[in-house]
């Protein structure tokens, strides 16, 4: 399962653009010379970051090709706010692709459950997979045009639900539950989004007996399995590094706190 294409590279920023919603940034780096599977991620650290922020930051590969490595990220804290200031030509150290990916089963329905910026890894998936057995339900807070939703919807059957208020989240949870139930025994769900959403997905997968994969966003120190800071508890009671054994896990293998 270990991929051999992971030396560190200093890539150049091609563009770093906030959308009309300034908290969502589209970052394109020069082509890294490797390709990867949807759900894999990279660790990213600007080459001339000082040491005030120690860690690199993990981001899903949104897409990768000869044209470059594309990341979509949300500014939530000190690191992402600094990353948002990157200018074309600056160097960013990148290592990856890292971790395990979403496994599609072409013989059965695969339903993507994406929440917010958790939509990122599915851009690549939608571009690559030719199967009709793929569809997406997207929950989002900001207006739809801020996300790469249209790109995906142009290729696979997609549906979006906006959550502006707390009440909307309850409605979304009900829909999630129904969709997951409908797939019990006949298909699987692939989820990426905020942790509360992943907990809900896991809960209904286990309740209804539906196959499911979730991508965790645990805080990471190294991305290579060394710091043991990103671990996830398995049902066996062990802690495994989500950067190596995940970030995509089978819902049946892990616990998600609570």
């Amino acid at each position, binding site marked *: 399962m270990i991929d*051999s294409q*992971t*030396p*560190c590279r200093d890539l150049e920023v091609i563009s770093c653009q906030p959308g009309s919603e300034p908290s969502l940034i589209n970052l394109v780096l020069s082509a890294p010379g490797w390709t990867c599977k949807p759900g894999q991620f990279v660790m990213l*650290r600007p080459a001339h970051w000082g*040491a*005030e*922020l*120690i*860690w*690199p930051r993990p981001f899903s590969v949104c897409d990768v090709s000869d044209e470059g490595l594309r990341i979509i990220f949300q500014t939530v804290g000190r690191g992402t706010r600094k990353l948002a200031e990157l200018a074309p030509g600056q160097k960013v*150290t990148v*290592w990856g692709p890292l971790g395990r990916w979403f496994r599609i089963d072409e013989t059965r329905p695969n339903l993507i459950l994406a929440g917010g910026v958790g939509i990122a890894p599915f851009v690549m998936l939608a571009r690559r997979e030719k199967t009709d057995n793929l569809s997406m339900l997207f929950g989002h807070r900001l207006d739809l045009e801020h996300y790469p939703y249209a790109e995906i919807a142009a290729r696979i059957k997609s549906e979006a639900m906006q959550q502006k208020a707390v009440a909307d989240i309850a409605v979304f949870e009900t829909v999630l539950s129904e969709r997951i139930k409908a797939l019990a025994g006949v298909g699987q769900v692939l989820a990426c989004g905020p942790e509360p959403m992943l907990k809900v997905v896991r809960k209904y997968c286990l309740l209804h007996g539906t196959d499911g994969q979730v991508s965790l966003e*645990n*805080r990471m*120190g*190294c*991305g*290579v*399995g*060394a*710091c*043991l*800071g990103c*671990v*996830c*508890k398995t049902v066996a*009671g*062990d*802690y495994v590094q989500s950067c*190596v054994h995940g970030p995509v896990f089978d819902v049946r293998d892990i616990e998600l*706190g609570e």
Partner: protein
Amino acid sequence: MDQTVHLGPLTLKNPIITASGTFGYGLEFMRYGDLSALGGICLKGISLAPRAGNPMPRIAETPCGMLNAIGLQNVGVEKFLKEKLPYIPAGATLIANLYAQTAEDFGELAAIFSGQDKIAALEVNISCPNVREGGVQFGQDPHMAAQVVSAVKKRAGTKPVMVKLSPNVTDVRVIAKAAVDAGADMLSLINTLAGMAVDIRKRNSRLANVVGGLSGPAIKPVALRMVHQVVQAVNVPVIGMGGIVSAEDVLEFILVGAHAVQIGTYNFMRPDNAFRLVEEVQVLAESLGIESWDDYRGTLKV
């Protein structure tokens, strides 16, 4: 310049050793560089029985540093010998990092490793702030420290024994001397400083364990001071660490008297940093006209 260093009974290609707990079992970094190019690798702390470690969250970022409360999660010595050690390529200089809750268990671990050809030396961790028993308790009391060291030395066979000191003490020289008197072949320091980080909104600690260990550039001044003090106080080689993130930093530790250094948190900042450092130190030392480490080591004018 020939970077070779002699640490008493242990000879290293160069003074760059990766620090325990920050370089996994070495295997995690094989894709990023040639393990045998490093001076040495201190393996993740190993105990007799497997340890699950502490609950999450276990790490927090702090200004120029980080806190960790991993709690010595490890696969246990048996599994390590079966599933990890055989896969580490020959040529790498491996140092086992031992953790136990009693002096006897420390001795037991030493005995097990004494028979392992692939292990070049033992590092005795009496300074982990993130475990309830053993750990830093041993490192804060000279008598307990001496007991552990004696127990290890008795059963370590021909393996050189390095004792890793805690900075969470009033006078690090007292513990250093106790360890040397009890037979330590060399000393390594510093382990992490006990620290905390909290979330003012959730009103909880950013670490499930509440207290964790502070590492990274933030602690370098404290580390340099302690290495300086210990070098004056004992007659065995000292391995310095704490916050090293550049070739300059490496030379600072050697200048105050360290024979070698360990690289910890810097491995997280970029996984090939330790490998790059070996080369950068070479360039810097040559640019300063240093002909051998013996000429430069401990030449600080005070």
